[in-house]
């Protein structure tokens, strides 16, 4: 759901690029926050809490941790302030996420 016409604003958008959300191909504009690109594609659940509750966009300024996702295998990326790049692999994060190189069985859950 993009705003196409606005009485006051003109939106300067980057190149249209391809990215992946949970393996599914999507399109967004390079440089916009990942969460904005996902929102425009109708994706509203970004993260599940440790207790399994869905979490979405909330503060949009990188303060609240509601939008943490796995981006190119890195967990806990604040997607509301991280710019979208072509071919990014973006995944819904469950709980605290796992650092690359860390064995999941080593984690206390």
């Amino acid at each position, binding site marked *: *759901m*993009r*705003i196409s016409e*606005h*009485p*006051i*604003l003109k*939106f300067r*958008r980057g190149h249209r690029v391809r990215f992946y959300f949970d393996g599914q191909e999507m399109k967004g504009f390079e440089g*916009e*926050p990942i969460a*904005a690109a996902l*929102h*425009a594609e109708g994706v*509203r*659940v*970004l993260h599940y*809490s440790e207790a399994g*509750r*869905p*979490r*979405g*966009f*909330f*503060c*949009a*300024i*990188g*303060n609240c941790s*509601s939008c943490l996702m796995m981006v190119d295998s890195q967990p806990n990326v604040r997607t*509301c*302030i991280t*710019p979208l790049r072509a071919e990014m692999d973006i995944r819904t994060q469950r709980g605290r996420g796992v650092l690359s190189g860390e064995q999941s069985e080593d984690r206390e859950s």
Partner: protein
Amino acid sequence: MKQVDIAVVGAGPAGLHAALMGAERGLDVLVIDNAGQAGGQLVKQTHKFFGSREQRAGTRGIHIADELTKKLSTYTKARLWLSSTVLSYYPADQTLMIEDDAESIRLIQAQRLIIATGASEKLLPFPGNDLPGVYGAGAVQTLMNVHGVKPGRKVLMVGAGNIGLIVSYQLLQSDVEVVAVVEAAPHIGGYAVHASKIRRMGVPIYTSHSVKAARGEQVLERAVIWQLDEQWNGIDSTQFELPCDVLCLAVGLSPLTELLWQAGCRMVFVPELGGHVPWHNGRGATSVPEVFVAGDAGGVEEASSAMATGALAGLSAVESLGQCPDYAEATGAWSRELDALRAGPAGSKIRKGLQSLQL
């Protein structure tokens, strides 16, 4: 370690004005902001400002941000570090620890520190307030006015202060339906001109009403609303449901004061100013001689007063370094402007808050 005369944390209306006061008087000024763009909340304010010409009446916030940033860039001794977060302040050696977006750490020693970190949105406690679709009003503005993405199809606005009313109007401008505005107080808090504008466009405003719960499976699908009695308790028999996919919270702001606590400033709890704020003398000086406060971090107001308190804090910091020959004249002008902004019934809460700050 790099040294500067004045470090300013926050590049919003207050921080940019504070920095300009130093830069115009030939000082080394460094402004640090964690966003990728300067202007703070101005970058999403598409509405025209009120007040006098000096207060930039008729100018949109988005243009003020550009103008201030350009002005600051004309001073070679002023620098602006964006995408940089101040992690901490060490008062003993007046040092800031800053992380940039490449995750590298830098230390900066500042003779004077101006904290203009602004405020964060308050959350309202109700079941389901963590559902995707429950967003802060600032986030809705960012999504829609900065990135051009509609926050949803049907928005319920909570709070009829100026932010709630203005964001409702901005949603309508972006062709998004606003199903209603609910306000817990018996009266609309924002300006009547904003309220009548959105009422004319068919949006009902329910005063003495609040959110009982937000419902939905994975995302917000509907909100349960109820009327409040005189003791602010919900009345069960009055509850009804409103289908919506966004619940926008515009229920006030809290000053972002972490660095002021770290600096050892004396803090005072003043509800009218948004919560804990540093004691300050009305011109930005805190209880710590080298630390100044500007904008919402010193008490929640709005952008025009943030520009004035920013300028005053900047001038006070410059004066404390013995570099402000025009101090009396310059602060006089900004103080008069600030008094004018706080005059009248709309400023009564702020005036009361500032009074109790001095007690």
